[in-house]
Each structure stands twice: as C-alpha cells, then as structure tokens.
C-alpha cells in the first residue's frame, strides 16, 4: 500500500497572547495508506484537531509549523498559498464535527456541494449538479433529487453528516480527514456513518485520517492507531496489535477506563492533562502514571517496539497482557433488595406545540405532542435505574418529570408520598429529596458564584443559619467527592470539567436526597475523567444508600452502573428489566440493535467469554 499522507517530525506552535509561540504538537510521525484508516486518538487538549488543521494549513494566525507534510510525493509545506488552495477540497476532503455549524445555514446544501466541484474542475453548473446528485446517492441520502435544494437545518444530524461527507468527496480526494465526525450523533447513526466511511474508502482506495477522542469508535474500523497525549505521540502501530496489547500506560488506561457490564471498578487516571505552557520536561504522562520512575521525569523516553506497536515508554515492555484482562470481574453483585424509594405509575408527559393547521395556529390553538407515555417503574434504595435511548426518546423528559420540573400525568411517589396530592409548600420540601446532576457541569454552576457558595446554596435555601456552619458543611461535602476544600473561594471557570461535575454532585448531596437523577453526567467529559466520576457515584451509592436514575445514550456507562435498565424509544418503553438480562438477552429488536451498535459492550461480551486479552476481530455485529 502506498502512503497517501506522511507526517514527518511534524510540529505546531500557536501564538497565545503576546508572548512567543507555545508548542502544541511535537514530533508527530504518522502515515495514512491508500484505502486505509488511521485513527488519531487523544483526549481534549491533546492537539489532535490542531494536527488536522496543520495538514491542510488552516491554522490560526501566527501559528508556526516544522517538519514535513507529504501528500503522496508532494511536500505540502513547500507549496505557495495559491497552490495549497488547489490541494484543499480537491486532494484532501475534510469532514468536521457538528455538521449543523460546519455547513453554511443560509445556503442550500446542493449549492455548497457544487461550489467545491466547480471550483476545482471548472465544470458547468449543470454538470456539478449532476455530480452532487450522484454523490447524494452514494452517501445514502434518500430521494437525493428532492433534497439538493434543502437547507442544512432541514436534515437530521446523521443526514447532515452525510451531506458533509458528500461535499468532501465531490472531487474524489486521495485523503479524507474526518475530525470527530460521529461525536454528538446517536449510537446507531454513528455506526452507520462509520460503516459508510469504511465502504467509501475501500471502494475509492482513499486514505482516511480519523480523529477521535473515543477509542471504541475506531476499534473495528481503523487499520492504524496513533495515540496522542499532551501534544506527543505515545503509542502507534497496527490497530490489531494495539487493541490486543497496548503497551503505553496511557493507552492502557484509556482502554481500561471504558466501562463494562458487571465490572466492579474502572481504571481511572488521577490528575489533569497539563496545559501546553506547563508540560513536564520528561515524559508528559509521568505525573499521572502509576509506572513512573525518576528517569521518566527528566527525559522524554525513546521509542521502543514490541509485538507490533511502537511506544514511547521506558517500561512498556514490562506491561503484560494480563493487566487489562485482570480487571476484577464482579460476578457476584447480589444486593439485598431494600425498600422502594421512588415509584412512578403510568407517567406521561405532553408538550403543547403550535397547531399544525394554519387557521388553528392563528386562533392560538395548540396541538399536543406526546413526549412520554405510560411509564411505570420502581426504584429501590441503593439501586440504579439506567434509562437508555437516542435523542428524542423521552429519556430526559422522564428525568424532568421525576424531578417535578415539568407538568406530567400519572403519579410519582417518593418514600410513600405522592407528589400529585401535595400542596405547594409540601411539594417544595419533598423536591429536596430528589436531586439532579446535569450533562454540562459548566452550565449547571453559576459562573459568577464562588464554589463554596455554590455548594452551600442548598443549605442556605433549606434555612441553615450561620455562614460559618454552612462553609464547614460545604467543605465537608467537597471532601466527600474527593475535592480539596481550598477551591471554595475559586470560581467554576478555574476548575476542570471533571472537577466541576464533582462540585455539582457535592451540591446535589447537600440536601441529603434519597435519590439523584443523573442526566448524561459523563457525556461531556473525557474517558479518563468519566471513569473517575462513575467510580465516585458507585461509591456514594454504596456508602449512603443513594439511588440513581442514570439517563444516558452511552450503553457502556449504563451497563457499568445500572441494576435495572429501561430502554425508551419515541416516548415509549421498549423494554425494562435486570441489567444483565436486558443487555445479555434483549427482548425487543430495538434493544438488540442498540446493544449491537455499542462497541464497548460488544468487546466486553467477548472478554467475558475469553476472560483474557481483548479480541478485536469480531465483525459479527455488521
């Protein structure tokens, strides 16, 4: 296979403020072969997006690069700006994350595709339109002729990403760079996009540089894997060898942080990613590494190789295959059934919506849209109910109804008290017993309040007097979620996402609730942070007998946490039951699809059976 893209000692430095440039990316060596997919993996802040922008030379003003970027036999760093423009779109196609913002909202999608084709081929408008139609068919957009003249907002998320892909393919590029193309898409849709990319690259012998933070997405699609940490490559090589035995402690931790069913404990990485300005002089992972030795902190380790992958770690050879498989499998999770904390009977939610007919709309008529219908469940003390579904399935609506944030019909009974029969004052007091942790921790903390005040706010509202006493209580709460109480005088923007989410948990604990609704609590966090948070929540459930409703699109997280799982689709309950049986032997077709689409979970099944190395080659899910 010939190399389509080769990065040779590639480095990028960006200008920050007025000082000199700060190195973001150092000494990257990477190849993408024709017809193959190379996955560039790293958490946020690793420099992976800067790498892709560096390749097409669209870095922010003032950036400087070093090293070579070879597209086939051509060195892109030698080209003039005008020559480089000819390469973009023609030889390299780009697909970005979040196609809604990456497409021009006020231009028809057809025009956005023909634009690039006409630019590079000089063809007529008509030929370009024919080409766009052909592309639409190729990427699997139904009724392509009708949809060319639609605007981006008229497409669903998955279809929008197909439009992006069609646009990137317009001039049949040799290389496709896909920057987190599936992030934010529903599981089944993401899977279809991945399959499409694989099909296209094979048919067209096109190289794909796939940038992602999520190893599991690329597990069955990538040919090569390249892991970045804090702007340096830590491990790279054939995907098969990598997933069989990652050698770098960071790669290991990334894989180990992915939750699995029945697992007692997740591997978590302590500490935070260093800022580009304050990266350690030696191995950048050293401060967070459990294999660290003194030499690691002084010099960057030389690349070493064993069994397929290349890794930059002194002790990579010592790290044995068993480490991964040795994660204790908690086969016994017999929990005595406690008293019922929360019960929901025939819960339903309707939303008013502007009337469908124009005349009724004029008269102020409203149609009702059923967001949730007829859901019943009960939750025991110390247990976790996982609610799984795609966007629009009504899972968040379910959470908000339980929280009494929106009107609903049916009954919600907390500790034997029915919310529907309560007076306003009584209800206000009872609501304290059901707390919430939201998806985006930055959104859920007032950015202009000090952390101490945020955590103490529920106490203040509950009538606890004495600012001193409240402060002490807030400090104790912060300590319980593993945070230092010295951060009480800081503002939320000064802490990391994972810390902010723990602050939100500390606040939720303040009123000693019987249960907490966790609404996608980890989906905005990096894998390593997510593991730490899930571990914390599990500990709290055990020590305090807290119950959870965990709402998530991430089956892996739910499988790790939940005792019972409910699957929702379009506001209807598809299936509910014991976690192991729902995931192990799904009753409904939809659940089967969902489980099959979850790469984390599939590989777990495998692991349970093989109880050793992680097997990769399972393509049975196709």
């Amino acid at each position, binding site marked *: 296979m010939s190399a389509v893209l080769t990065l040779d000692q590639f480095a990028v430095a960006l200008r920050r403020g007025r000082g000199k440039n700060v190195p973001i990316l150092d000494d990257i060596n990477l190849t993408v072969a024709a017809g193959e997919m190379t996955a560039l993996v790293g958490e946020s802040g690793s420099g992976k997006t800067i790498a892709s922008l560096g390749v097409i030379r669209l870095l922010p003003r003032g950036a400087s690069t070093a090293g070579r970027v070879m597209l086939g036999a051509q060195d892109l760093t030698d080209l003039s700006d005008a020559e480089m423009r000819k390469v973009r779109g023609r030889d390299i196609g780009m697909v970005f994350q979040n196609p809604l913002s990456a497409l021009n909202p006020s231009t028809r999608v057809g025009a956005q595709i023909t634009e690039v084709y006409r630019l590079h081929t000089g063809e007529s408008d008509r030929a370009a339109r024919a080409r766009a139609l052909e592309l639409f068919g190729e990427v699997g957009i139904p009724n392509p002729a009708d949809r060319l003249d639609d605007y981006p907002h008229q497409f669903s998320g998955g279809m929008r990403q197909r439009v992006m892909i069609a646009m990137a393919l317009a001039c049949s590029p040799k290389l496709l760079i896909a920057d987190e193309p599936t992030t934010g898409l529903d599981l089944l849709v993401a899977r279809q996009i991945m399959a499409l990319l694989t099909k296209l690259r094979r048919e067209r012998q096109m190289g794909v540089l796939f940038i992602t933070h999520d190893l599991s997405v690329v597990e069955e699609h990538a040919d090569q894997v390249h892991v970045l940490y804090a702007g340096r490559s830590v491990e790279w090589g054939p995907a098969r060898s990598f997933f069989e035995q990652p050698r770098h402690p960071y790669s290991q931790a990334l894989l180990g942080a992915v939750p699995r069913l029945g697992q007692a404990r997740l591997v978590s990485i302590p500490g935070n990613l260093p800022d580009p*300005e*304050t990266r350690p002089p030696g191995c950048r992972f050293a401060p967070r590494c459990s294999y660290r030795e003194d030499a690691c902190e002084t010099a960057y380790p030389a690349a070493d190789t064993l069994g397929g992958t290349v890794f930059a770690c002194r002790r990579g050879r010592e790290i044995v295959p068993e480490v991964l498989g040795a994660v204790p499998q908690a086969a016994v999770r017999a929990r005595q059934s406690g008293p019922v904390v929360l019960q929901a009977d025939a819960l339903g939610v309707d939303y008013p919506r502007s009337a469908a007919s124009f005349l009724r709309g004029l008269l102020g008529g409203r149609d009702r849209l059923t967001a949730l219908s007829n859901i019943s469940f009960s939750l025991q003390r110390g247990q976790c109910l996982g609610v799984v579904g795609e966007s629009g399935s009504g899972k968040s609506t379910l959470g908000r109804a339980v*929280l009494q*944030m929106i009107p609903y019909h049916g009954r919600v009974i907390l500790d034997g008290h029915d919310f529907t029969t309560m007076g306003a004052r009584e209800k*206000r*007091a009872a*609501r*304290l017993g*059901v*707390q*919430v942790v*939201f998806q*985006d921790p930055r*959104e*859920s*903390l*007032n*950015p*202009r*309040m000090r952390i101490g005040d945020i955590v103490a*706010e*529920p106490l203040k*509202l*509950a009538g606890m007097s004495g600012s001193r006493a409240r402060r002490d209580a807030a400090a104790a709460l912060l300590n319980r979620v593993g945070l230092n109480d010295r951060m009480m*005088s*800081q*503002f939320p*923007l*000064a*802490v990391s996402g994972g810390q902010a989410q723990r602050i*939100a948990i500390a*606040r*939720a604990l*303040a*009123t000693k609730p019987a249960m907490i609704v966790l609404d996608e609590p980890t989906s905005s966090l990096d894998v390593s942070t997510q593991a730490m948070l899930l571990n914390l929540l599990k500990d709290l459930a055990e020590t305090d007998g807290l119950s959870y409703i965990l709402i998530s699109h991430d089956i892996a997280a739910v499988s790790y946490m939940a005792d019972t799982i409910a699957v929702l689709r379009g506001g209807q309950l598809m299936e509910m039951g014991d976690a192991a049986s729902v995931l192990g032997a799904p009753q409904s077709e939809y659940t089967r699809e969902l489980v099959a689409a979850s790469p984390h979970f599939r590989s777990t099944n495998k692991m349970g059976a093989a109880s050793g190395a992680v097997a990769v080659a399972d393509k049975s899910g196709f």
Partner: protein
Amino acid sequence: MSLSLAENMAAPGGALRRGAAARLLGWVGDRTMLVSGLVLAVLILLFCFLGALIYPASPVAIHGHHAFQPPSGAFPLGTDQIGRDELARLIEGGFSTMVVAIPAALLTFAIGIIYGMTAALTPSWVDKILMRLLDALLALPGLVVLIFFASLFAPGNTELIFLLGLTSWPGLARLVRNEAISQRGRDFVLATRQFGGGTWYVARVHLLRVMAPILVVNFTFLIGDSVLALSGLSFLGLGVKPPMTSWGGLLQTGLNLIALDPWWMIFPSAIMIFASIVATNLIGQGILARLGEGR
C-alpha cells in the same frame, strides 16, 4: 473583575511569578481601553465637582468691560458675549450636566431592570403585553418625547432627571428581558429551583449576578447617552435654565455666534462633551473586551 483575578490565581506560576511592577504594567497593557477610560472619567468628574474649589470665580458675574474676549491671564478661557468667565461657566456647566445626567442614568437603569425582569419572570401572557407596550415605546423617538414634555413646562434639574429617565429606559428594558430569558432556562437555575429557590431568589441571586457585567457596561453607556441627550436638549433651548448653564448650553451659545468665530466659546464645551462620551464608552468597551478574553 474578580473573575479574571481568580483565573490568574488558578494559573500555576504564570502571573504570580512575575514581579509586582511588571504585573501592574501588564495589567495596564492588557486593559488599555478600560484604564484610559477610567482615568479620563475621574479627571472629568474632578473637574466638574472640585473645579469650583480650585477656580472659585463666579460663573454668573458679568464683567462688562471684558465682554467677548479670547483667553487671557485674567480669564483662562476668555469671556462670553456679555462678559462672564468662560472657565467658571465650563465648571458650572459640567456640574449641572453631571448632576442631571448621572441620576437620570440611574433612574433609567432602575426602570429598565425592573421592567425587563418583570417581563422575563411573569407568565407569558403578561410578558407579551409588556413587550408590545415596549415595542410601541421604542417606536417613539425618546428625544422627541422629551422635547414635547420639556416644552410643556420649563423643566428644572429635577424635572430634567425624571424626563430623561422616563424616556430612555425602553431599550435597556428589552435588553434585560431578553438576557434574563436566555439565562433563566440554564441548568444552574433549574438546579436552584430543585433546592427550593423561588422566582425572586433566582432573579436576585442568579440572574442579576450573571448579568452584572452586561448591566455595568450598559450603565456606562447610559451616562454617556444622558450627557448627549442633555446637550441636544440644551441646543434646542430646553435644557438647564439660565443664568445657570450646561455644556450643551455653552456650546449652543458659542455656535449661535459662529459668524464671529468665538473658538474659545465653542471648543472647550465641545471637548468636554466629547471626552465624557469617549470616557464612558472606553470603560464600557474595555469591560466587554475583558469579558471576551475571560470566556
């Protein structure tokens, strides 16, 4: 500002390693607009409120023999057409301008926030009615309404404050309402409600706090706008009553005599008005720029 302080503290090394002097310079360097606006504003306020102590000449005394003279040793900014000391009048005019413009801005500010918050936090049908009323008021040019009322009764300073305050709030009210509506659905507000925080508590503790920077910025703009509106009124002959004067009044007198080219009667007041608007806008834009960096 406390926000950026916290960020500096949080950044390891960074700001703390550098010396105090360098830090101070850095502070000024990063905040040129804000600092120069503040310095200018302080100078203008000192001139208006303490100028009379340093230069105690009477702004109304008529020096008949020295009428219409360019600046000299005795009269640093010359005299007007009937022989009044222009510098003394500039100080007095500044004082009159500020004692009207600042309270008027405060009044506008208060009405705008109360109205906007009420619209944002009441049921949607109340909001709809309040917003239509606001649309109607916004369609009326504030200064025109001001002229109308000012012509009804020759207003004194108190009346001017109320007139300015009562005619210039609708724009701010809409801004406050839109901002409050966009903030009230945020997760931290929902979380607070789950802890039993009521509407009033949320508005007071959360919304106002989050909106504080944008409100401060708008307050500075309001002061500038009040100064401008007041000078426009004075130009139309409806401002501060003679023999007292305002900067707008002084400028109008000078411009009326333009055929005689009395530059000393035109430029000092024009510059003072100009400088006040520039100062308030520099402060406001300076704060906005700092916020942009913080995000």
